[in-house]
């Protein structure tokens, strides 16, 4: 056995990885592909964030300041598409690539070449999408929801939009297949399903969601394409089609998509809070079942996005109540995270700070979601800034803070260096303050009746829009600290040690920091698994 390990170690030292550009273009290594996903997501985060800054710049004052309304609508559409499909989803896939094999004791993902393909589809998809800014008619401006008949008025960018959405979907499906196959087939002996870390569990459930709903989005946009170019009338009322059917199909994809964006954050918070509370996670199995329940419920709530299109009273009641039901498993999670901290020995390093902010602010987003679930109230809130405030609370201090918590948690493992803790805390506090300055006033604007997706507004909305814009600029600038901190950490720092955080448990912490190019070339022993599997 000792000989085997010696051989494995020497193999790791001379790991035969290709050098230069070939290492990245031809990569089949889960860590390299994970890094590429994360770098790509970071670039897209700043491009999508740049669009958000321009939106807030235009909305700083009433009247048209800088952009014509068509371009403004392109900015909102592209901001959403880039952030959802280009920043958040690739960031999760990057984290999955890095961590899942290390956490389940596998040497790599099950399908490494497919993994390479999944990643390299993305730069083509987003080059195509971003290039649409420069074609006649400009970038798509019909909203990320692509509702017909409006979206069918898109100019030359229309086929670019459809093809890029297909590519993004293909990439996500291939990535999801890889995650499921890896988790179900590559776990080290002894890692039973209920010994898996919560991040692996939440990603497994997310992958099932992806396989179920990304093809539905692909089907919907294929039908848009044939309506536009091949004379079909799936969604064209003049030919007997039904535009509302598109909304049903889209939101059958769209609502589980929300959970695709948030479930891995639940996993990360479930890793971070126990570590920095120095206590095992409270109610591990309940967390697993709550995640599965949320995923199931996500399939039967879609029409709450479209109460105002008109539907039978029974349907309205069903979708209202099923939506409210999601609060139950979500409440279980919030309770368990809080109970984990109860009487814990807490410390407040950046991952914990981001996880705590997630806990508070995601809950605010959840509560405003409950308000939106109430049909008569939704009739008032529909298409106002209240909705914008709601989903940004879920997606920014929810999902984005979850990603930040994950990166701050595992960065010392990835690089072998501890990062600049002070800078990390600055990043957190600036982000946490400005994100509230940015999004909280949007609740007031929405309740006062300001509609979304408009470049101009009535003067009574000026003050809160200015506050929101100042928050937006502050939040955007604060994010520049993040890549700087990472770059600094990659270049050097205090050695992090194998177990970078005192209270950390999990197989990844049994590996050296940084881990060798090929980790777990021999499966972890029972003793290592037992040590790592303490939740």
């Amino acid at each position, binding site marked *: 056995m000792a000989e085997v390990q010696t051989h494995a170690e020497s193999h790791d030292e001379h790991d035969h990885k290709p050098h230069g550009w070939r290492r990245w273009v031809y990569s089949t290594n889960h860590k390299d592909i994970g890094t590429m996903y994360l770098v790509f997501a970071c670039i897209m985060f700043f491009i999508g964030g740049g669009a958000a800054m321009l939106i807030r710049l235009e909305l700083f004052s009433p009247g048209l300041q800088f952009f014509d309304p068509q371009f403004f609508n392109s900015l909102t559409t592209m901001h959403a598409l880039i952030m959802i499909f280009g920043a958040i989803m690739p960031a999760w896939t990057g984290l999955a690539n890095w961590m899942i094999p290390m956490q389940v004791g596998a040497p790599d993902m*099950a*399908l490494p070449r497919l993994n390479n393909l999944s990643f390299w589809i993305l730069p083509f998809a987003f080059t195509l999408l971003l290039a649409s800014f420069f074609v006649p008619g400009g970038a798509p401006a019909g909203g990320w929801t692509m509702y017909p008949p409006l979206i069918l008025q898109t100019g030359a960018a229309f086929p670019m939009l459809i093809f890029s959405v297909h590519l993004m979907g293909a990439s996500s499906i291939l990535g999801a297949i*890889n995650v*499921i196959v890896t988790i179900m087939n*590559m776990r080290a002996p002894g890692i039973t399903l209920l010994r898996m870390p919560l991040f692996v569990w939440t990603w497994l459930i997310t992958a099932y969601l992806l*396989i179920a709903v990304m093809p539905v989005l692909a089907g919907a946009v294929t039908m848009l394409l044939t309506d536009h170019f091949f004379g079909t009338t*799936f969604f064209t009322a003049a030919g007997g089609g039904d535009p509302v059917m598109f909304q049903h199909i889209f939101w059958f994809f769209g609502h589980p998509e929300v959970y695709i964006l948030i479930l891995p954050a639940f996993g990360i918070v479930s890793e971070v809070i126990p570590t920095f509370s120095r206590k095992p996670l409270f109610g591990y199995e309940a967390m697993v079942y709550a995640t599965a329940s949320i995923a199931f419920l996500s399939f039967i709530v879609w029409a709450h996005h479209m109460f105002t299109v008109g539907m039978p009273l029974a349907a309205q009641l069903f979708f209202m109540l099923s939506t409210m039901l999601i609060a139950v498993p979500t409440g279980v999670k919030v309770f368990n995270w809080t109970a984990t901290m109860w009487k814990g020995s807490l410390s407040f390093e950046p991952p914990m700070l981001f996880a705590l902010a997630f806990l508070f602010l995601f809950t605010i987003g959840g509560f405003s979601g409950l308000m939106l679930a109430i049909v008569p109230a939704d009739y008032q809130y529909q298409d106002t800034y209240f909705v914008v405030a709601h989903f940004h609370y879920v997606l920014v201090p929810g999902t984005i803070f979850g990603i930040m918590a994950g990166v701050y948690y595992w960065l010392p493992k990835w690089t072998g260096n501890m990062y600049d803790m002070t800078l990390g805390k600055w990043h957190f506090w600036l982000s946490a303050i400005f994100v509230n300055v940015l999004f909280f006033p949007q609740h007031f604007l929405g309740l006062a009746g300001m509609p979304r997706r408009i470049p101009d507004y009535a003067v009574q909305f000026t003050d809160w829009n200015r506050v929101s814009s100042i928050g937006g600029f502050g939040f955007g600038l604060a994010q520049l600290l993040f890549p700087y901190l990472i770059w600094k950490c990659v270049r050097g720092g205090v050695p992090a040690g194998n177990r970078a955080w005192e209270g950390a448990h999990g197989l990844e912490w049994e590996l050296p920091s940084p881990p060798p190019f090929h980790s777990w070339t021999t499966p972890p022993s029972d003793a290592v698994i037992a040590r790592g599997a303490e939740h």
Partner: protein
Amino acid sequence: MAAADLEAGSEQRRRVRRSALLWGLIAAAFYMAFIVMAVVRGTK
């Protein structure tokens, strides 16, 4: 021992291929099913 390891390795590869194919087919079925559903609904 080595032969058993090889056998286990090839069995794992078979399982990986089978489950990847299965999930790929499920994804393709969802894609087709929703288009077929829309066609059927449109021709009613």
